[in-house]
């Protein structure tokens, strides 16, 4: 059976996950994005590629930043954008979710951008639409549970390619709460697909999922050891709600061991770049002097994120 994100012609109908995407497809998305970077600098910051299309931002989980960048991306492509913040009841979620989708599809939505706290919700929606409206509607996963955040993964790859050019010579460290991070999962799949020879996972054992070694990663619980010689550092947000459980003693303790400071950054390659998907917890996973320092490319990620999302929308819409 074909992957639900592909249509009958083998083209991308939806973007649900980076896992399984061929290397050429990822590069094609990044190449397309590079053409959109300049659009934001024009006098008219708009191109008409999605003129007359309706993009529904369907956020079942709050996110101002991701929703905003999708909204800007869609608007720069001249689409009409509707933002829906849907609060779900915990009961009968599956049924009400697809009812919502059917209703919005009946309003002639062309694209759904879906953020959901449950892993697999965008896939469920895409599979449903493949059954009832095959080829008519596109779905973009804007983050589902712990599963995937493919556009964040792609914009991270765009950022790395922009600054480092060649993936096949890099050492990349992913640092922090990998267990709960859909960003980390998408990044790791993308990095390995693009041929990065050394991907390191750094964090306390309680925040590292099992199976990382099987994916070819090197595991480090000592951050200093793990950062030695790396070219790219991807910091992850420590979600404060995790601190209430037994996974971590305290934010201060975490900062001491896994917070990125200038002193720890000095162990990486001298031209290493520091990335963070945002929002940052300064003084928890990253020190302000690093976040605002010359090696941080965190705001570049945000800027590139718009071009990457424009590229994804354009490619899906022409599938």
């Amino acid at each position: 059976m074909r992957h639900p994100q592909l249509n009958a012609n083998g083209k991308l109908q939806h973007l649900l996950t980076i896992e399984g995407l061929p290397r050429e497809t990822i590069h094609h998305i990044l190449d397309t994005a590079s053409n959109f970077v300049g659009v934001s600098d024009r006098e008219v910051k708009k191109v008409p590629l999605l003129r007359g299309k309706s993009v529904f931002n369907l956020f079942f989980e709050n996110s101002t930043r991701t929703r905003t960048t999708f909204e800007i991306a869609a608007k720069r492509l001249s689409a009409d954008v509707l933002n829906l913040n849907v609060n779900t009841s915990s009961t009968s979620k599956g049924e009400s979710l697809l009812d919502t989708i059917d209703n919005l599809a009946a309003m002639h939505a062309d694209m759904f951008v879906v953020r959901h706290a449950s892993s697999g919700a965008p896939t469920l929606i895409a599979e449903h639409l493949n059954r009832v409206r095959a080829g008519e509607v596109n779905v973009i996963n804007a983050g589902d549970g712990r599963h995937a955040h493919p556009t964040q993964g792609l914009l991270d790859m765009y950022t790395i390619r922009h600054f480092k050019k060649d993936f096949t010579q890099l050492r990349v460290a992913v640092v922090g709460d990998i267990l709960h991070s859909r960003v980390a999962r998408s990044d790791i799949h993308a990095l390995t697909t693009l041929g990065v020879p050394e991907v390191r996972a750094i964090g306390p054992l309680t925040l590292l999922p099992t199976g990382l070694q099987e994916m070819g990663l090197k595991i480090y619980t000592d951050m200093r050891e793990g950062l030695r010689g790396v070219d790219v550092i991807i910091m992850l947000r420590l979600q404060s709600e995790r601190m209430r459980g037994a996974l971590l003693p305290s934010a201060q303790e975490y900062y001491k061991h896994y917070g990125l400071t200038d002193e720890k950054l000095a162990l990486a390659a001298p031209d290493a770049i520091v990335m963070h998907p945002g929002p940052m917890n300064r003084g928890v996973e990253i020190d302000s002097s690093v976040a605002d320092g010359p090696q941080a490319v965190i705001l570049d990620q945000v800027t590139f994120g718009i071009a990457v999302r424009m590229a994804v929308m354009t490619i899906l819409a022409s599938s």
Partner: protein
Amino acid sequence: MSKQTGDSSLDAEAIYASLRDAIAASLASDPQRAIHLIGIHSGGAWLAERLHADLALTTPLGTLSSAFHRDDYGRRGLPAEMKSSSLPFEIAGTDIVLVDDILYTGRTVRAALNELFDYGRPARVRLAVLLDRGGRELPIEAAFCGLSHPLPAQSAFVLARDEHGQFTLGIE
């Protein structure tokens, strides 16, 4: 598909020379007015580059992509190897000569004009093409043209550039 080259009426270098001379004559008649050349990717960009050198223009050279504004985007999507527009000068108030290799339906020029106007409001835009093959579907005409050579719909001209920058034209 048969490919025929060497048709004496399609000496690309001679056609290019007549286009170049037409633009040069216009420049000579109005020497006070500086023009900016902008080539449409990819054949038009080659031509504009060559014209820019041969006419010894000192104004910066631009290139333009029509991909964002094409009216067949819904059917064809973006080209696989798309090149971006590069306009390293102010468009507002500028006298522009837009350069393309083949003028056919006029749709590429329409899309290129839309792209151009996203950068500003030029004072004037004229069109220069190597070859006009007829078959217009829009009210667009060239101010400078190397040669008019009608071609049936099922055929296409293909401009190529060798390593010395010399042009050849084929029909497919």
